[in-house]
């Protein structure tokens, strides 16, 4: 991993108390209190570095060597948010090039993907770079590429996704947004059950703030429904896809009934035969599909309930079959739906 200071001739394994250039500092040992709760048996390296950190904070020192010290501490404990805070403050005060810092933190971010502070630090850096860098957009697009690398090691990491979404909304530039749908599609090709990718699709298509009339919502909805149907045909029992479908219909106030033909293909016992006419709008389940699939039955029951009147009976029948046969884990829920419908 690259080092911040290049003139550091000391052996890396050395403790701070052994380094000649730190002799001017009196380390401050920790006071843990009497009978402390959950005391940590620190390693000698961590104990040593944090004693110097306490001294630096107390002296309010701003210097290059603070970057080295804070780097060492967060390498041992990436959740040490005070060291992160102090590091960021020092970078700014020293007018340290922030794009260099960003790059320095690349390997670090991938190593400590699950630590919030890693992403918070990048957020601070990108915020500052947007107003100070000569070409902030190129930094942002490089950052999007970096996030793809990070996500490739953990495609559902919550912090990483949140950070990507924050970045897109913060820079809000067509040049950045336009690569997102192809990226989501690549992810779903690899794993159609990746809910983070489905959610990102929703964020990109429906969450982005648009000017009035900038897009034709009808066209977008048509495209999204077609895409989702294709994904359901590939894996009919995928709740991520069904939830997306429900979400976009509700968002656009489109009745569930408009998808009846499609949903019925997945709610029957047997797959439609080969001889049936090919209907491009309503892709059929693949040959190995387990039918009927529970999310389709649920959807069909919701259509019946939406229509009301005589159709409520059909909804009740489906809920009963879900509880008794197709989704027994949620038996009590399906019974509850029956009871609710009867009480109206």
């Amino acid at each position: 991993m690259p080092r911040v200071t290049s003139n550091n001739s000391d052996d890396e394994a050395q403790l701070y108390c052994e380094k000649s250039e730190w002799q001017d500092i009196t380390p401050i040992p920790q006071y843990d209190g009497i009978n402390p709760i959950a005391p940590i048996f620190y390693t000698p390296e961590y104990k040593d570095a944090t004693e110097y950190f306490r001294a630096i904070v107390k002296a309010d020192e701003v210097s290059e060597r603070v970057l080295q010290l804070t780097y060492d501490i967060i390498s041992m404990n990436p959740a040490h948010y005070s060291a992160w805070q102090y590091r960021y403050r020092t970078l700014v005060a020293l007018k340290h090039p922030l794009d260099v810092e960003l790059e320095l933190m690349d390997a670090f971010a991938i190593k400590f993907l699950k630590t919030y502070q890693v992403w918070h630090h990048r957020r601070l850096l990108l915020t500052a770079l947007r107003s100070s860098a000569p070409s902030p957009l190129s930094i942002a697009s490089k950052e999007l590429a970096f996030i793809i690398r990070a996500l490739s090691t953990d495609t559902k990491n919550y912090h990483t996704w949140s950070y990507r979404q924050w970045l897109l909304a913060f820079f809000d530039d067509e040049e950045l947004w336009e690569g997102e749908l192809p990226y989501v599609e690549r992810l779903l090709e690899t794993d159609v059950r990746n809910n983070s990718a489905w959610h990102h699709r929703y964020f990109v298509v429906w969450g982005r703030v648009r000017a009035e009339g900038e897009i034709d919502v009808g066209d977008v909805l048509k495209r999204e429904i077609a895409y989702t149907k294709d994904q359901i045909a590939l894996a009919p029992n995928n709740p991520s896809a069904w939830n997306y479908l429900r979400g976009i219909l509700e968002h656009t106030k489109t009745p569930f009934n408009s998808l009846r033909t499609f949903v019925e293909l997945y709610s029957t016992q047997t797959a439609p035969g080969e001889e049936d006419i090919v209907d491009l709008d309503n892709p059929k389940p693949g040959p190995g599909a387990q039918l009927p699939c529970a999310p389709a039955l649920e959807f069909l029951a919701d259509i019946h309930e939406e229509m009301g009147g005589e159709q409520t009976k059909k909804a009740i029948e489906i809920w009963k079959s879900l509880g008794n046969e197709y989704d027994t884990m949620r038996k009590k829920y399906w019974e509850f739906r029956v009871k609710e419908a009867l009480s109206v």
Partner: protein
Amino acid sequence: MSSDPLDNDKSSLPRFARSAHASHCNRCLSGLPSTQVEADTSRLAVGFYCLGVMDMLGLLESKINETERERWRDWVWNQQSSGTYGTGFRPGPYMTGQDSLCWSDVTQPGDEYSEYDTPHLIMTYTALLSLAILRDDFKRLEKKGILKFLRSCQRSDGSFSSLPNGGDSDLRQVYCAFAISSILDDWSGIDVDSAVKYIQRCENYEGGYGQSPGGEALGGTTYCALASLHLAPVPSSSSSPSRTPLFSPHISTKHRSRTIRWLLQNQTPSGGFCGRTNKVADACYCFWSGASLHILGASGLVDNRALATFLSTCQFKFGGIAKAPEERPDPYHTYMAIAALAIYPPEDADESWTLPEMNALWNTTDETAQWIRDHIHNK
């Protein structure tokens, strides 16, 4: 085993290893190995989970003597500090130098903290609960200072940050601010309306709540949203029926149904809940999702037996509960699993599974919640 497996189609649950789970937490209270160094900046939370486990299992008094409990109370109070942003609790003494203070049992108001050692919102919540579990008299509570601290942490969009001068800000901090306000029985430290609007912006197309607006629906933050909306004081103008723990004027019937549907969908075939659609079950989400359903008045719809079966397999052979079978246990998952079982006691289980009633909104036992009301409210 009392039941004959031949005439019981449900396999019977193994015993719940109460004493081993308590020992796991007791060990963590007395010390953590160097590999747990990331807990350095969240020690009060670790303490809360460990003490919470002892409280739920009813073993606090028998396993830990009064002198030790007294010293732990002092230690927690020593993390309370006051300064520019008000009063609150720091995560632990990781920034406390031996030079800095002449230590007394009581931290005096006016002790100034540095910008790099301010109180922490989440830690303040866990400190108050830990003190209540340790049956503290709360005479050292700096109520006014804490209200000021809450004010310092609220941001213009209604959310709260962990630290008054930065840090993460999402639904977890909103929940802690709401829980602290209701623990203090004083809402003057926060702008409830803007916080409620922030919470509502976090609701997502699946029916759950993301960590922040635009985020993927997640069990933990869904609990934070729902508990906050149910803790929030009901506006006097609202035509709502009398306030019950199962009702919030901030959630419409339609949204409530959608959230219930999504939560229940996350109970996986293993019996445990996952935190997001299509993820694997995890012991902590058994609490976050289970408690969310309880808050929405839908706990009757959960398959208790399957839930307990999953959690029984997360028990580690030497004590403690892990996030999933074959994983290492930790105090967080041990606490969350036990809290989930307290809300969803399995039917026909032996007495080792018996747990006390829970206050799902504060995430503590009813008895500890009552202690808070008796010792903080109207004081």
